[in-house]
């Protein structure tokens, strides 16, 4: 007797392949739409000129500079804070200690806080209470709060991947904990830190809602960190919603933004792959 594949098996196989195909299709639709419409607009002039006529014409040079500054402030603040916290949780606080658990719980909450609530907080704290006003500094600091949990989680993973033998050997040799950390564990955990950094960078570049009320709308070239600056994502939002006829340039800006993110994304998966293969990089 010939074996026949049961009917539910065939049906489920068909459905699952169809789902995978349609999800891929949706992604390709979105990407090709942005690429197709954006490509005809993006050129050297677009990247180096200032926007004019509310962004309908001209380029996005000041907006790229503002975005870079905001993200720069964000990373400069969040990296030391994030890596420090991760070291403490992973290496120094016992797993069950109350402090460790509290910090971990609050980080889980922090990771879930909606970006618009970060915007409210940034507006109330950095702009009003600390008197920074609508500025690149307020925007960057708000973003720093936002990417912190991502950075910490990934760095922690990096530290967890370092084999305990390293720690025991160092202890047996009488190396102090600080020296062990600095000379041995930190270099070994570097891939985790790097992945976290890229993930945070991606999140920071993509963010809009937290920036509208903290770094503001101004599309001139920023002169200092105290100036208001418009990020690329806010620019897209403004062109799409508030400027009629801004669609072409919105597409072009979206293409620039998506290209950055695809680049970051590829770097992450390349790094993660290397990380998984060798488990630990010998530096």
């Amino acid at each position, binding site marked *: 007797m010939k074996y026949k594949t049961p009917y539910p098996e065939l049906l*489920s196989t068909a459905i699952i392949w169809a789902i995978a195909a349609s999800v891929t299709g949706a992604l390709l639709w*979105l990407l090709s739409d942005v690429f197709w419409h954006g490509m005809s607009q993006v050129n050297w002039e677009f990247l180096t000129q200032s926007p004019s006529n509310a962004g309908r014409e001209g380029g996005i040079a000041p907006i790229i500079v503002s975005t870079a500054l905001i993200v720069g402030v964000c990373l400069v603040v969040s990296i030391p804070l994030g890596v420090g916290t991760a070291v403490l949780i992973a290496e120094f606080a016992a797993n069950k200690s109350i402090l460790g658990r509290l910090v971990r*719980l609050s980080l889980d909450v922090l990771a879930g806080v*909606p970006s618009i609530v970060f915007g409210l907080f940034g507006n109330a704290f950095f702009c009003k209470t600390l008197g920074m006003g609508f500025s690149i500094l307020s925007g960057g600091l708000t973003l720093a709060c936002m990417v912190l949990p991502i950075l910490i989680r990934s760095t922690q993973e990096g530290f967890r991947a370092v084999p305990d033998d390293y720690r025991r050997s160092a202890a047996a040799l009488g190396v102090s904990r600080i020296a062990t950390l600095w000379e041995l564990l930190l270099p070994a955990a570097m891939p985790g830190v790097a992945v976290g950094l890229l993930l945070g960078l991606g999140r920071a570049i993509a963010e809009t809602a937290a920036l509208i009320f903290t770094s503001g709308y101004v599309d001139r070239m920023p002169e200092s960190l105290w100036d208001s600056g418009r990020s690329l994502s806010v620019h897209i939002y403004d062109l799409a919603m508030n400027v009629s006829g801004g669609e072409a340039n919105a597409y072009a800006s979206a293409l620039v933004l998506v290209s950055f993110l695809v680049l970051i994304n590829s770097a992450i998966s390349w790094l993660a792959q290397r990380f998984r293969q060798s488990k630990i990089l010998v530096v």
Partner: protein
Amino acid sequence: MAIASGAIVLLILLFLIWETLPILQIIGLARFFNDPAWHPTSEEFNLVPMLWGTLFVTVGSILIATPIGILSAVFCHYYAPKAIANLYRRAIELLAGIPSVVYGFWGLVVLVPIIGRIHPPGPSLLTGILILTLMILPTITLVADASLASVPSEYLRGCASCGLGRWATVRGVVFPAAKSGLITGVILATGRAIGETMAVLMVCGNVVQTPKDIFEPVRTLTANIALEMAYAVGNHRAALFVTGLVLMVMIIALVIAAELLNKGHIYEQ
């Protein structure tokens, strides 16, 4: 430093409460739920239509994204050849990396006109649900992917030796074994859907009303803040912070639920 990082959550809560305290003391929390309408400039603060908006958009997108997301992970593990599975994973990661403002923009120029042709006006609950589905899908898939990977391989070999087919294995053995991970993914995605601002703001139409069908425009809590924060002063501004506080309470409840479910670390499976 760890204390500083942990304290940020407290600082956020503190500031939300600090900004809302005056209005809560003067007019009380109850009026946010039984005022006649949302006219913040004339002191009417009814948040209920926005609550419904957030609820409908979230529930709708979760209902669609959960089966698609989980079956996507199943596809990667049990159905696709290895090369295709890896490609598909990359596609999902890419989907997760696309900024919400780009989703919103694409929804606005591509989806809204299509929906508008089927049933005007176009910007509607349905458009919001579709865009959000695409956005929270990667969260569900990536978490499900990780929890499917942790199903012990003896289970699978046992199933194979009993002559069970793929689907029978997945439904009968893998899903029960990976249940808590799958549910965690859905909870995380719910949080993301509730908190999403830009995409929803751009495709939902933002009319303050309780929608009667899926083709009517809605406004969510997050969109409410983003739309009015720019010009809000005094009690109006405080009312928007109340909106933020409501969102925050929802998120904390979800995180605690996920925490209880997983007895510890949500993201660290």
